[in-house]
């Protein structure tokens, strides 16, 4: 190819120009639809209505914040706080352990690679058994921990076992899905080489695939520990005990001084877990907490760039810790495993299932469910729009950088930690001080809690982005903010938006838990049906909820595709 001396020639500009085309290629439709959906959701949840604020509540808010200056620090209450913290932590650990057992078995069985190595030759065939396994895991995943808890407590009675199972079952299903994805995204060249040299499938997986997938599997496990602490707290709110339960008690009896002590304990527990999990990932050389939306093949590249081999000493220490902590937590909680197989449990389960079928699918009921489903959907959209917007804005000060002052980092990270450490139902109750009951306080509660999670996820994406293009611009004389708009921002936006859409899936499930404190939507209906033992109605609502989460998952997947 010769270099044209084209300076003299008049140049026609190629093609027509369209703004943002480069950044969101093929995504303009998605962007437009998202904006429309947010506008619709805002109207639905009553953002534009006048009578939102209950002015009478401001005195309570003042009292609440004034109490921050004098938290309850009596020895008896500190003791109670410590015990509650231990209970929450023990629930999280036991639930996570159960979810790992389910996750490993389910993850292997629903991974493509497991079934492929057992076929000969090593190629895909129609009728994929891993898809069946994945489908079977969708149901337990769609039901939020709190709902599991409410069901199980009816069958098993009040026992720590309920909280462990309520946490372990949905977490197990989610873990299985992610584990199977990690196994399938791990490069297969070594595995293929071993299989081709005649190694049995199991041996080949153990030597060719597992070691490479291990840092990612462990990294995700520790991310799940963070999630488990948050979920164990929420389970406390519905009566399982621990920090969430105490926060609720103090809030309802207007003892705000106690609340601040408990919130401090929550922040501390969350903060330590998050820090530990980050340290572990550092040791493993797997910087991302959660990698969503990698284009096929990217994983391999990222692996080569960032992954280090985990040190075997660090691994042993981790394993030792796990072996020690799980039995200790079990001893502390004393769950009654006998209840799992007792005749009473079987009778109650049978009775409940019998009453749940057939579901109440009368015309009235369907119309009501449809309307509430739309309301729930609107709640989740408003929540994510707020959390996403603020998350994008806060993530940049919250990203650790090499130069410049450190206080914006600590300030925003600390703020985000508090937002996510306080569970969403508690946020909802706080919003209800000054707002009239309805979907909006629920949406705000979800927004605030998810902002805490999302802000940090995006901040870590910002930290992990390739710094060299930014430096190249700065070395050519571009001021820092200019360079930010031409490198860091465009490079991190696809991943950030992918996180927002991914979080939306989870938020749609979480609408149930703010529903329990009266924030509207399907969650509120579920609460009413549970307390009036309306099981046919309950199963109909569950079907609606399942449909809703399915629709949201699908929309999120479609919306994320052009962001790759």
């Amino acid at each position, binding site marked *: *190819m*010769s*270099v*044209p001396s*084209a*300076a003299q*020639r008049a*140049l026609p*500009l*190629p*093609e027509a*120009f369209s*703004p*943002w*085309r*480069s*950044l969101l*290629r093929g995504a303009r439709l998605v962007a437009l639809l998202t904006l429309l959906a947010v506008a619709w959701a805002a109207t639905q949840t009553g953002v534009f209505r006048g009578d939102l604020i209950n002015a009478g509540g401001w005195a309570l808010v003042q009292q609440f914040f004034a109490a921050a200056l004098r938290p309850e620090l009596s020895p008896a209450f500190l003791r109670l706080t410590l015990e509650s913290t231990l209970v929450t932590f023990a629930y999280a650990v036991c639930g996570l352990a159960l979810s790992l057992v389910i996750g490993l078995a389910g993850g292997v069985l629903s991974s493509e690679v497991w079934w492929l190595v057992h076929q000969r030759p090593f190629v895909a065939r129609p009728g994929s058994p891993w898809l069946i396994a994945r489908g079977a895991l969708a149901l337990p995943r769609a039901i939020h921990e709190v709902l599991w808890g409410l069901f199980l407590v009816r069958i098993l009675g009040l026992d720590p076992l309920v909280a462990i199972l309520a946490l372990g079952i949905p977490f197990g299903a989610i873990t299985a899905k992610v584990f199977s994805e990690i196994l399938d995204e791990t490069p297969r060249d070594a595995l293929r080489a071993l299989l081709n040299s005649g190694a049995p499938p199991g041996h080949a997986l153990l030597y060719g695939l597992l070691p490479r997938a291990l840092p990612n599997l462990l990294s995700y496990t520790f991310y799940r520990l963070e999630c488990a602490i948050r979920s164990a707290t929420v389970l406390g709110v519905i009566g399982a005990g621990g920090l969430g339960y105490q926060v609720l008690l103090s809030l309802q009896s207007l003892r705000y001084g106690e609340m601040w002590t408990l919130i401090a304990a929550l922040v501390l527990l969350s903060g330590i877990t998050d820090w530990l999990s980050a340290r572990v990932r550092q040791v493993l050389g797997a910087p991302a907490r959660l990698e969503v939306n990698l284009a096929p093949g990217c994983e391999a590249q990222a692996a080569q760039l960032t992954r280090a081999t985990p040190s075997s000493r660090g691994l042993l220490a981790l394993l030792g810790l796990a072996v020690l902590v799980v039995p200790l937590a079990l001893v502390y909680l004393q769950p009654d495993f006998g209840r799992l197989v007792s005749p009473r449990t079987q009778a109650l389960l049978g009775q409940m299932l019998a009453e749940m079928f057939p579901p109440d699918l009368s015309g009235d009921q369907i119309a009501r469910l449809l309307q509430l489903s739309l309301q729930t959907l609107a709640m989740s959209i408003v929540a994510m729009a707020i959390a996403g917007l603020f998350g994008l804005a806060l993530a940049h000060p919250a990203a650790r950088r090499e130069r410049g002052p450190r206080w914006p980092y600590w300030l925003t990270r600390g703020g985000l930690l508090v937002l996510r450490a306080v569970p969403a139902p508690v946020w909802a109750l706080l919003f209800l001080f000054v707002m009239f009951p309805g979907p909006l306080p629920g949406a705000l509660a979800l927004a605030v809690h998810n902002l805490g999670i999302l802000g940090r996820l995006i901040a870590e994406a910002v930290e992990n982005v390739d710094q*060299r*293009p930014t*430096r*190249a*611009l*700065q*070395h*050519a*004389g*571009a*001021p820092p*903010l*200019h*360079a930010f*708009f*031409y*490198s860091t921002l*465009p*490079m991190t936006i*696809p991943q950030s938006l992918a996180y927002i859409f991914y979080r939306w899936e989870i938020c749609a499930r979480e609408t149930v838990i703010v529903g329990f404190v009266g924030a509207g939507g399907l969650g509120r209906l579920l609460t009413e049906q549970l307390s009036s033992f309306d099981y046919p109605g309950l199963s109909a609502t569950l079907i609606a909820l399942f449909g809703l989460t399915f629709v949201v998952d699908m929309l999120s997947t479609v919306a994320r595709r052009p962001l790759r």
Partner: protein
Amino acid sequence: MPEPVFELKGVTVRYGAFAALSKVSLRIEAGERVALIGPSGAGKSTLLSLLNGSLAPTEGEVRLLGQDPTRLSTRALRRLQRQIGTVYQQFHLVPNLSVIHNVNAGHLGRWSLLQAVVSLIVPLERSRAARALAEVGIADKLYARTDTLSGGQQQRVAIARVLVQDPVAILADEPISSVDPERSREIMTLLRELCDRFDKTLVVSLHAIEYAYSHCERMIGLRAGQVVFDLPAAQVSPQMVEALYRIRDVDV
């Protein structure tokens, strides 16, 4: 005697105890085409970082376009850096921006923040960008997403960015190590022609010695942080090059 574009006087750069460059002195005049050659770790990249003002020497004096970058304010340093363009081995482009924005990033030292942000939505100076792309031979890629381009094409985008920046001197840090041999020749020829036509000084670090002979008029041989030779290309013998790259006593 006119002021040199680059001047180093007894420059040493240390990273901890390791001396990446020691006691290097050299002058590069306007319009010269200089090749930096030498084995990996010889200090070529360190030298180029000194020349674009992104690294300060541990000892000695660096003068870029007659100015000492270590004594400039941040603002004045940026103004100086605008006059020196760099092309990198790994391109250092933003993969998911379209080509025009990566090319327009060459304006950033001059643009106000408002202009910069507005241009991301409705690109400014489109004809200037189109002309730069035509100069580098990929006029039709103006609105293509950068990561859809081949390695050679991406390096052309990086060169177009430098053209838009319109510096006095162009530095190129192993610009052809990430592209195939045929593309290498094209990129080197492009760099030489552009520097000739727009009267720019070129300093390029290379592993492919044949291009140092064919495309540059002066060669600086670096080894273990020291200048081994600094001669017109015609006077560099194959024996000298071989001695430069010989394994023995490189890893001391």
